[in-house]
């Protein structure tokens, strides 16, 4: 909604001085400048019962300033109507010099805007001093960036208040400078590339000035050149490139480069950073997170998978720095590629509608809720949400008895507004739990097993669950009460977590009992991963059976299903659900994703063939899910689109969801909604011809792809002949199988010959023949099945 900062002048100037070696920023446009030299109030009005006067007591510039006295509340102060002066979405730098009247104790001053939207006031913060940053002995500058979005306000009053309700103060040299228009389509989408093959620095400059940048042929990632940076004096020193005309606020980019330390330098983490200058304010934003680089080999630093530039600016520079130390390093093959903004395809069938006869379809939510295209995508295709992290213990009760639900409340509100149900994830887990939970108050360190600690820990557990589920009432229809408590490697199947060490299995009982006590309406779930493995599912079965036999209130099992392209098989899924079904419980798929694996470092490098294969795996998986109608109540994807997934990391990029980074449907989407649109889905086989002598009869098998997309990696398996008439004989199929046919593009076909020895078979011997074929690494299968086949 707004952005603000409170850089002090000195800090800002210091940073500007540090950036002296870069191209100077374009000067911002001043739109308001008040120095009160004309003796008037220059349009400023009182906010609250205060007195404003033009004063010549002190001045920052000239001989006049604005004096505020008679304040009785923190938000009292001088105010300026800026409605019509400031534009929705634009960014401004707002500055004022402030000083307390003589004798007033040092305090904090704050510069804010009260924005009235739909009749309700909203307070935006622009800048503030430190707690005692403003004194009566000198001038202090308040400065920050300001922009507002959403609905155009009906009231917009900037004011300067104080954390002291009664402090009196002077204001001088107030200014508003226009920084940038609202983010819009970029002026160009060319991106940039630096390979250093030109022999020069290709526009790269020392960020701080002392660095030495040298085009080098001593090491290179590709070609014969790279850029070497030496003489770095701080971690923030490094090569920098002005990208003001290449990267634009509101746009998204794939950024990558290769880096390698100079010989002899110890392993160091490097970071790719953007430096934003907006007026006199300078800040930095990490583009590629810290990643270890050595002198032994080139390491690719890349965005994961995409960087959204949200920095209104007057200039931008991209630079490479180290996390610590000052090693010299090479960079090469720098690429900045524009990525189109996400857009929801409104003409698609909704996934939730297609699957409505079977189960709810969920996605994750995170942060302060769903907005923009993310909200559109979630609302269109999903009717259930699960918070990725905001309901975990470290988020909801970071310190004992202090509950925090800001993000969850926003997500629940979104769900209510969009007709979605909410799953609660999770109440008890051994991970993402604050340290205080396991601290022994007597020792101040992690608990050791004792009756007292067991009682204490179980009480903390009860209090936590009560606090969480009571807050949400009936807004959450199901809870993952206990998460990942099983370790199939243990004789009793229970993970040796601190929970187990201190309480045995009692924490499981208490968690379910407490959840039932305070959320009697909710379905209570035990949730775990790898549930389709034989050993894990046996453990889950035994755990649930034990809980039910002892009257512990458990309603179901959650199968996380972080799947790959090869596992689990649809049959393993069916077997798992059918094994647990006799326990008379609900079953849910809670965290589904189907990772493509590999070691991709650029989203766009993931081959079409891999995405096609993923589409077939999704198709086959949902074929199994649909067969579980009545046993499976919800399927939740652990994400929405590939721009946000836990499977993407600093070492590899994955694409495990139905929608790509542009929020467009992938083959995985079609695998659910209309599998006939999968690449190569129409692949069919036929017997093209038969020829040759009886002892080496050649059957030509043709695979045809009349449908959409390429059938990737088509193969023909060994024909099986079953005699149905005539004197008995044994035909022998010769050759090596499967026969690789390869990619068959849409509208084409390919043939392969198979030789069969029919020696001993009479002319009228007839056979049933079955010839399996496949594409997409066996995920798409078919067969030529024919009866009444003569040799």
């Amino acid at each position: 909604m707004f952005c603000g900062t409170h850089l002090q002048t000195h800090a800002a100037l210091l940073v500007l001085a540090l950036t002296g070696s870069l191209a100077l920023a374009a000067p911002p446009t001043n739109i308001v400048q008040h120095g009160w030299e004309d003796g008037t109030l220059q349009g400023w009005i009182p906010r609250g019962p205060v007195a404003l006067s033009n004063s010549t007591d002190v001045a920052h510039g000239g001989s006049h300033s604005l004096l505020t006295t008679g304040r009785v509340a923190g938000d009292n102060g001088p105010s300026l109507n800026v409605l019509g002066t400031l534009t929705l979405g634009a960014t401004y730098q707002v500055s004022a010099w402030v000083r307390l009247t003589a004798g007033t104790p040092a305090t904090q001053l704050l510069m804010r805007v009260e924005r009235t939207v739909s009749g309700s006031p909203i307070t935006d913060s622009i800048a503030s001093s430190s707690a005692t940053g403003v004194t009566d002995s000198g001038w202090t500058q308040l400065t920050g960036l300001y922009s507002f979005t959403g609905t155009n306000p009906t009231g917009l009053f900037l004011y300067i208040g104080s954390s002291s309700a009664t402090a009196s103060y002077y204001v001088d040299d107030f200014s508003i400078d226009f920084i940038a228009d609202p983010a819009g389509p970029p002026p160009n989408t060319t991106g940039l590339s630096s390979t250093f093959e030109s022999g020069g620095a290709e526009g790269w400059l020392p960020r701080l000035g002392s660095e030495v940048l040298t085009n080098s042929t001593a090491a290179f990632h590709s070609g014969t050149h790279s850029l070497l940076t030496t003489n770095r004096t701080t971690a923030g020193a490094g090569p920098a490139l002005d990208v003001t005309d290449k990267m634009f606020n509101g746009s998204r980019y794939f950024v990558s480069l290769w880096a390698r330390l100079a010989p002899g330098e110890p392993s160091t983490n490097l970071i790719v950073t953007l430096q934003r200058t907006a007026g006199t304010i300078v800040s930095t934003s990490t583009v590629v997170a810290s990643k270890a680089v050595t002198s032994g080999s080139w390491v690719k630093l890349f965005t994961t998978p995409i960087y959204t530039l949200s920095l209104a600016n007057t200039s931008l520079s991209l630079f490479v720095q180290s996390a610590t130390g000052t090693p010299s390093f090479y960079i090469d093959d720098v690429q900045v590629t524009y990525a189109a903004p996400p857009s929801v395809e409104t003409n698609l069938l909704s996934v939730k509608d297609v699957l409505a006869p079977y189960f709810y379809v969920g996605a994750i939510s995170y942060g302060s809720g769903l907005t923009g295209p993310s909200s559109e995508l979630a609302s269109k295709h999903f009717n259930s949400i699960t918070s990725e992290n905001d309901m975990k213990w470290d988020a909801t009760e970071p310190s004992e008895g202090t509950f925090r639900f800001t993000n969850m409340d926003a997500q629940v509100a979104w769900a209510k507004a969009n007709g979605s149900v909410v799953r609660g994830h999770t109440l008890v887990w051994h991970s993402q739990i604050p340290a205080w939970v396991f601290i022994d108050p007597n020792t101040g360190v992690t608990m050791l097993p004792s009756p007292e600690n067991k009682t204490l820990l179980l009480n903390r557990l009860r209090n936590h669950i009560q606090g969480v589920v009571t807050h949400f009432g009936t807004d959450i229809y199901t809870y993952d009460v206990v998460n990942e408590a099983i370790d199939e490697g243990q004789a009793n199947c229970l993970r040796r977590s601190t929970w187990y060490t201190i309480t045995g299995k009692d924490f499981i009982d208490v968690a379910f009992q407490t959840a039932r006590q305070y959320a009697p309406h909710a379905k209570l779930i035990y949730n775990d991963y790898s549930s389709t493995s034989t050993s894990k599912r046996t453990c889950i079965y035994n755990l649930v059976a034990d809980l039910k036999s002892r009257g512990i209130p458990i309603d179901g099992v959650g199968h996380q299903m972080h799947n790959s392209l090869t596992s689990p098989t649809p049959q393993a899924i069916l077997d798992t659900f059918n094994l647990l079904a006799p326990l008379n419980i609900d079953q849910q798929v809670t965290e589904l994703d189907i990772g493509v694996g590999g070691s991709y470092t650029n989203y766009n490098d993931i081959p079409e063939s891999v995405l096609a294969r993923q589409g077939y795996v999704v198709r086959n998986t949902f074929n199994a899910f649909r067969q579980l109608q009545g046993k499976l109540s919800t399927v939740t994807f652990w994400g929405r689109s590939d721009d946000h997934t836990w499977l993407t990391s600093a070492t590899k990029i994955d694409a495990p969801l139905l929608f790509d980074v542009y929020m467009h449907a992938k083959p995985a989407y079609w695998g659910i909604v209309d599998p006939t649109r999968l690449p190569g889905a129409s692949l069919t086989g036929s017997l093209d011809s038969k020829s040759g002598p009886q002892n080496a009869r050649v059957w030509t098998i043709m695979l045809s792809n009349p449908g959409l997309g390429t059938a990737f990696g088509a193969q023909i398996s060994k024909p099986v002949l079953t005699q149905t008439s005539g004197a008995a004989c044994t035909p022998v199929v010769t050759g090596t199988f499967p026969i690789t046919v390869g990619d068959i593009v849409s509208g084409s076909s390919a043939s392969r010959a198979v030789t069969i020895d029919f020696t001993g078979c009479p002319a009228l011997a007839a056979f049933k023949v079955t010839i399996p074929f496949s594409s997409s690494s066996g995920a798409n299968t078919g067969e030529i099945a024919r009866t009444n086949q003569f040799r």
Partner: protein
Amino acid sequence: MQSKRALTILLMAGMAVAAHAGPVFQVLPGGTVGDFPGTTVGWGFTITNTTDYLVVTGSQFSPAPFAFFGSYQDLIGTGPLIVLGPSPEPQTLTELFNLSLGTGVGAFHIAATAAGRLDGQLIVDYALFSVDPNDPNFDPDTDLLVADAQLSAPVSVFATPEPASLLLIAPGLFAMFRLRRKRLPVRS
């Protein structure tokens, strides 16, 4: 008058061409079938072939149905050998679908978990020979004209709601009707 006669000749010529163009396949009684989940439906056929000898080699539902919706069973290719063509073979064969007798093109078992509708093609596979396979002089090596060809027709399978579901819907509809009846006097 003259142009009318010319048109008639053209139409007859067209029919003649069509008659010799190849085998003709018709689904009986129609392409759209449906029933409750858990039941089996199917299709009968009429196939006509006037030139050469058509040997039926099977049938398929394309695209192959997913298990959650159902499964297709070939009947026409697994029964007695069907040869259609010049004398002494029949040129036309008609069979109605009968699961217990195993007649018709094929059977479609609608899975218990099926919902909605599945569209596809019902395909009859055949081979074409220049000599009747039932002729003592038949030689499959030399008399084969076409190893593998297909006749097809568009079909649809509907999974209609379970009777139990209908029983649930009926009281709901009745309740809505009652509600509406009760409101009518208020509105008047």
